[in-house]
């Protein structure tokens, strides 16, 4: 009998599993639950907080709960978008960590049947003089481009912040937006009993096993030991996967779809089952493997990249397989949907795990960590201008300022990204908002990525609110109507009361601002435990906001002033 703690479960979680099952879980079940109920997959520390966000609105087609949120972009078209963190993997393997972060978020958007159309990346690097920062930042930027460029999705903007608090824990937040005709939306809630369950894409190997659990822990000083859990990305296969999925969508061959991200097959299949209200029987011995000797739980939790889970009508299998083979992808029938709620994994016809689907994804007990206002909060506000030395040479001071890491041009970063592929980029990186056009409707989609960690540290509530307000302001100035936003909450451990308080306050500030400005939160992601033994990151909520501009004539480009124009200051 395996100890539940080895699987990463806490005692009350273990008791809950036992209670629901009415028996002791076996090793496979324990390992699966350990990952599925990790912070990364279950949001157990934050799900009650996230309920504060307004998630509905006139323009919301699909809110949180799907692979990405979808808003109405007019004329029967929708924009699907989400931001997701890949912080821990990027700290250990910068190139691959960042690359697979981009790949993962693209599949999230693809899962809705949308064509991934624009990416943004939020990068938070440590002290720029530090050697580690230099290696990490170069690797991360190369990784973002190394995946985004071949896969044919332009990177149109982003956010880069330097602060020494990120030296041990760099942050990589990947945003993707896809475009979809609303009558072609695909959902993960639409499976019915009696359908086939297919894996499309790459073979399954031992990559990233228990990566989700890894992402839920503080970085150990001995990062080498955590290395085997890193995934390797193949953008070439992802490009084929995108084209294959969209062709299947066009041919109306997909009943339901889900990407395989954290916790691989188990997460994607149990989510479809739970959300659709069906049971599932999966034959793990049929999963195409890249390595010999993989055990059922390794297959269950492998985070091999470039795979999608499809639910299709039995009579459509041949047609689906033909499309897959045209694009050179494996497509394997691994099981079926059944009435009821039982999620069953078979290995050579023997049951090796069997649990209610709803238990796996939904029922992780919430954790309410104790919360305490930081004792030093007032002290953080103490600042005396007189303490600053007067610059000897103001010209030099100004130059130093504008060339400082946090203010200087980001060109070295975005020049390494293909900003224009798909021929829709009206405004790429280097401006306050990024803009793409929808060819089919002539409307423009505007987007921004914002973050202001220092403000969130000094005054978490107002910092959170200001982060949201700033991004919406930028859209408004460009002539866009905000449709919705996505956020990634990057924080240190919630287990320290003062850190948890900051998290609560930031979320309250953000949600109040969203409510007041009528901008719903349609998707998001949480990344906790961004701290090492000697460092914690500043509270770092990242916000990606999306708006629509009805026609190119209504788009106000920045930087188009001329000599002789008048300058007005508007606002309070």
């Amino acid at each position, binding site marked *: 009998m395996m100890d539940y703690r080895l699987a990463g479960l806490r005692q009350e979680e273990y008791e809950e599993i036992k209670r629901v099952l009415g028996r002791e879980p076996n090793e496979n079940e324990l390992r699966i639950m350990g990952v599925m109920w990790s912070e990364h997959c279950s949001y157990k520390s934050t799900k009650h907080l996230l309920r504060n966000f307004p998630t509905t609105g006139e323009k919301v087609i699909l809110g949180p709960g799907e692979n990405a949120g979808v808003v109405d972009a007019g004329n029967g078209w929708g924009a699907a978008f989400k931001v997701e963190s890949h912080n821990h993997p990027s700290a250990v393997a910068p190139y691959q960590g960042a690359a697979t972060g981009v790949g993962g978020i693209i599949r999230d958007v693809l899962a809705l049947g949308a064509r991934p159309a624009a990416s943004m990346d939020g990068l938070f690097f440590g002290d720029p003089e530090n050697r580690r920062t230099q290696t990490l930042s170069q690797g991360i930027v*190369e990784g973002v*481009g*190394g995946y985004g*460029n*071949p*896969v*044919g999705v332009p990177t149109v903007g982003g956010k880069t912040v330097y602060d020494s608090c990120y030296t041990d824990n760099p942050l990589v937040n990947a945003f993707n937006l896809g475009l979809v005709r609303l009558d072609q939306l695909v959902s993960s809630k639409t499976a019915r009993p009696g359908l086939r369950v297919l894996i499309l894409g790459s073979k399954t190997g031992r990559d990233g096993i228990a990566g989700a659990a890894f992402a839920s822990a503080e970085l150990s000083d001995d990062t080498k030991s955590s290395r085997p859990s890193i995934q390797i990305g*193949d*953008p*070439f296969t992802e*490009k*084929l996967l995108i084209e294959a999925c969209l062709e299947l969508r066009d041919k109306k061959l997909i009943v339901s779809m889900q990407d395989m991200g954290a916790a691989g097959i188990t997460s994607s299949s149990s989510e479809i089952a739970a959300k659709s209200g069906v049971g599932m029987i999966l034959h793990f011995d049929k999963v195409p493997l890249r390595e010999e000797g993989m055990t059922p739980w390794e297959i269950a939790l492998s985070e091999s990249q470039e795979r999608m889970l499809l639910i299709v009508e039995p009579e459509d299998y041949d047609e689906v397989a033909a499309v897959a083979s*045209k*694009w*050179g992808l494996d497509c394997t029938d691994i099981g079926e949907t059944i009435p009821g709620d039982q999620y069953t994994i078979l290995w050579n016809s023997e049951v090796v795990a069997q649990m209610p689907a709803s238990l796996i994804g939904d029922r992780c007990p919430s954790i309410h960590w104790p919360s305490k206002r930081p004792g030093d909060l007032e002290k953080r506000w103490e600042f005396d201008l007189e303490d600053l030395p007067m610059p000897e040479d103001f010209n030099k001071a100004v130059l130093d300022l504008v060339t400082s890491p946090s203010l200087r041009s980001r060109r070295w970063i*975005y*020049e*390494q*990204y*293909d*900003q*224009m*592929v*798909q*021929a*829709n*980029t*009206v405004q790429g990186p280097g401006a306050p908002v990024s803009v793409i*056009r929808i*060819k089919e409707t002539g409307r423009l989609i505007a987007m921004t990525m914002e973050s202001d960690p220092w403000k969130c540290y000094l005054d978490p509530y107002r910092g959170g609110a200001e982060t949201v307000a700033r991004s919406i302001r930028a859209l408004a100035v460009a002539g866009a109507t905000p449709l919705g936003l996505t956020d990634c909450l990057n924080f240190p451990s919630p287990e320290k009361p003062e850190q948890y308080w900051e998290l609560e306050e930031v979320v309250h500030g953000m949600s109040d601002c969203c409510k007041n400005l009528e901008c719903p939160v349609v998707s998001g992601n949480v990344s906790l435990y961004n701290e090492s033994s000697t460092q914690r990151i500043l509270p770092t909520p990242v916000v990606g906001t999306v708006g629509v501009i009805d026609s*190119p004539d209504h788009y106000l480009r920045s930087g188009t002033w001329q000599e002789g124009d008048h300058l007005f200051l508007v606002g309070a």
Partner: protein
Amino acid sequence: MKACVVVFPGSNCDQDVVYALRHVVQATVETVWHKEKNLPANTDLVVLPGGYSYGDYLRTGAMAARSPIMDAIREYSEKGGLLLGICNGFQILTEAGLLPGVLLANKFLRFICSPCYLKVERNDTPFTLRYSKGQIVQFPIAHHEGLFYLPEEDLKVLEKNNQVVFRYASRDGEIAEQHNPNGALHHIAGITNEKGNILGLMPHPERASELLLGGDDGAVMWQSIKAWIKKEGVR
């Protein structure tokens, strides 16, 4: 005008070229999968688009250059058919031996996506006849392997035959190292074969075909091709 855009696994600018051809010169455009053995009948122009065919693995363009459709393309071009390779398409043309040279990794070994100025060295090719000779145009580049290389002797022959069609330049037409984004020998951005019916270039005309997207110098290339086909008819 009937154009055909070849799609390899990993191509990612195929639809951009299709869009530009349809919208700028109202061409009839078909895409052709690399596994096909024949081109559509009455094709006036074949485009090998940008992207990462076969993931750019081994050498850029190497595997695409050996895919089934290439025999038909070779035959088509031998008969004088117009053939245009953009970015990865240029790499494929050199690997297939349809154009001389090879594209090596950029001098700073980084991917570069940036607007570039080019000097039009020839306006007597089917692809450039609507430009004026010496005109400076702006096209974006987006590549990791764009350093045009040929051994010294072959390079001399290329120059002597006047096969260089585009060179990297400054906005004012100055040709110098600092305006050469990738280290290409002789600042070469695009070349043609001796007969003049094949053009390969690293910059992307299809990304410079609309003012809304930042510029339309590239649109002139599609107009040139259309004008040439109208004048010469199908070969």
